[in-house]
């Protein structure tokens, strides 16, 4: 009997004290409802107080990046706090630079929500969402590229920067047993908030492209996640040299029409579109039309292997050769320049080399494809 006394006493004492802690926790850590004001009233969340900011935000569907899951050991969950949340904790200081302390940047996992708080989050953080939409139209723009236009239903609006991409969710079909996601740049302009337009080229054997080309039909319900990406117009006065091939048209088209709609027409834009023969060209009329109305916009399409029946009298050769020729002798050299690329990795690498030859170092492109 006596051998049971020790474990029983230790368990009873521990249990009793744990109960006391739980009761005190329940009473003391009850902070009621607390407001989180994000980006100066753009979004106000009413949440239960008492928990760290990081966890509270994630229950609200806002995912601040964190590698350690809120234990304060990675220092990734930095958030700019605009209201007073007390002095820095010793657990935060090792991750903070002097500049960050000056800007009151805090670790979201270390700040406990006790009262209303004002924070600033990068726009794209709480823009990333899952969208449900309906295929409104699915058109062939060339023999192997389809223009997929999706009307968003739930939520029915998307905010993105021209040039960003979304992940299209491909459901299981035929021999593909699992749902997959593929990234596609948005080709429609951001002003059309209710629609997402994608350009999808058929890749032989490709899971997603085969699905879109062979199985998808108008009226289908599709899901997408986004927007993502760092490929968008940089806010400078430099001339923009844009190069695309095939379905790389998508983000460039979005950027150009976004600039036109927002009246950013003082910048010189040179858009080089490369194709093999005339049957790979599309949207040419649209850009020619824009060229007539926007004097600083120049559209150059080049064919690398024009067929005899194409009667092509435009630029011939690889797009990199055409780009080099224009940079050398056509485009005025007085202004600084930025490069915007979208296409196959081979094309991007070749173009980056051409740009560096002319010491153009601000070159932007998406790393996928």
């Amino acid at each position, binding site marked *: 009997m006596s051998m049971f006394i020790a474990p029983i*006493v*230790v368990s009873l004492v521990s249990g009793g*004290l744990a109960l006391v*802690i739980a009761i*005190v*926790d329940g009473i*003391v850590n009850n902070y009621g409802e607390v407001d989180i004001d994000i980006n100066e009233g753009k979004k106000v969340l009413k949440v239960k107080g008492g928990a760290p900011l990081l966890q509270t935000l994630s229950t609200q569907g806002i995912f601040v990046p964190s590698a350690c899951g809120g234990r304060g050991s990675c220092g990734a969950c930095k958030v700019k706090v605009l209201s007073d949340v*007390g002095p820095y904790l010793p657990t935060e200081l090792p991750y903070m630079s002097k500049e960050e302390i000056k800007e009151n940047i805090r670790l979201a996992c270390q700040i406990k929500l*006790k009262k209303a708080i004002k924070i600033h989050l990068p726009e794209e953080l709480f823009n990333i969402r899952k969208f449900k939409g309906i295929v409104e139209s699915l058109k062939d723009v060339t023999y192997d590229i389809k223009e997929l236009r999706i009307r968003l239903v739930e939520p029915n609006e998307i905010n993105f920067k021209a040039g960003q991409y979304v992940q299209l969710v491909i459901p299981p079909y035929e021999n593909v047993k699992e749902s997959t996601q593929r990234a596609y740049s948005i080709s429609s302009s951001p002003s059309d908030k209710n629609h997402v337009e994608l350009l999808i080229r058929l890749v032989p054997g490709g899971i997603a492209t085969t699905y879109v080309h062979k199985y998808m039909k108008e009226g289908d319900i599709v899901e997408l996640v986004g927007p993502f990406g760092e490929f968008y117009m940089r806010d400078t006065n430099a001339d923009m040299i844009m190069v695309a091939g095939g379905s790389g048209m998508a983000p460039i088209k979005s950027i150009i029409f976004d600039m036109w709609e927002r009246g950013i027409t003082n910048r010189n834009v040179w858009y080089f579109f490369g194709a093999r023969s005339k049957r790979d060209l599309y949207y040419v009329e649209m850009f020619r039309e824009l060229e007539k109305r926007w004097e600083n916009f120049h559209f150059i399409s080049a064919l690398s292997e024009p067929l005899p029946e194409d009667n092509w009298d435009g630029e011939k050769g690889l797009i990199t050769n055409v780009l080099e020729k224009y940079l050398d002798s056509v485009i005025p050299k007085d202004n600084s320049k930025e490069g915007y690329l979208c296409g196959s990795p081979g094309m991007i690498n070749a173009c980056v080399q051409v740009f560096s030859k002319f010491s153009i170092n601000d070159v932007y492109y998406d790393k996928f494809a």
Partner: protein
Amino acid sequence: MIPDINPIVLFFASIFTSNILLTNFLGMCSFISISKDLKSSNGLGLAVTLVMTITTALNWILEKYLIVPLELGYLRYILYIIVIAAVVQVLEMIIDRVSPNLYMVLGIFLPLITVNCAILGVALFMQLRNYTFIQSVFFGFGSGIGWWLAIVLLAAIRKKTENAPVPAPLKGVGITLITIGIMAMAFIGFAGMIKVQ
């Protein structure tokens, strides 16, 4: 046998003549590391005093009504530590809510106190010396104040000697230990003036 000492006398004795830190050398780790900074020393001293007073009282009750009747002397260390850990947890939550400023001052020191040996030491002395409840409370409170006084004194001395030409091999902890030694000698000079057991 219960020692016949006035609790008030015991209180002052445990601050000056029987300082837990400088005569028993308990709670040295945080004493050396935190005394670098006067403000932190003050915070830690306050936290130690609070926890020491409360845990000594609670452990006295535990001793009298559980450990002695059930003859569980061999569980004493474990039970004392469990009580100390729980008290620190509860205190941390209450202070966080009631006084965020104090919480900020105490910062990470509060949880660290769980493993401060002076706290357990005071509880064990209290049991060893057969103090009454009132004596225990005053002993715990006084020992806390004594610990607080010692760390603030050391922090002040370290501040003064910060720019002193200390021989290179003794810089840092070396000179700190020597300083503590001299302080302890001064305090030990009073030892025995007042009977504590």
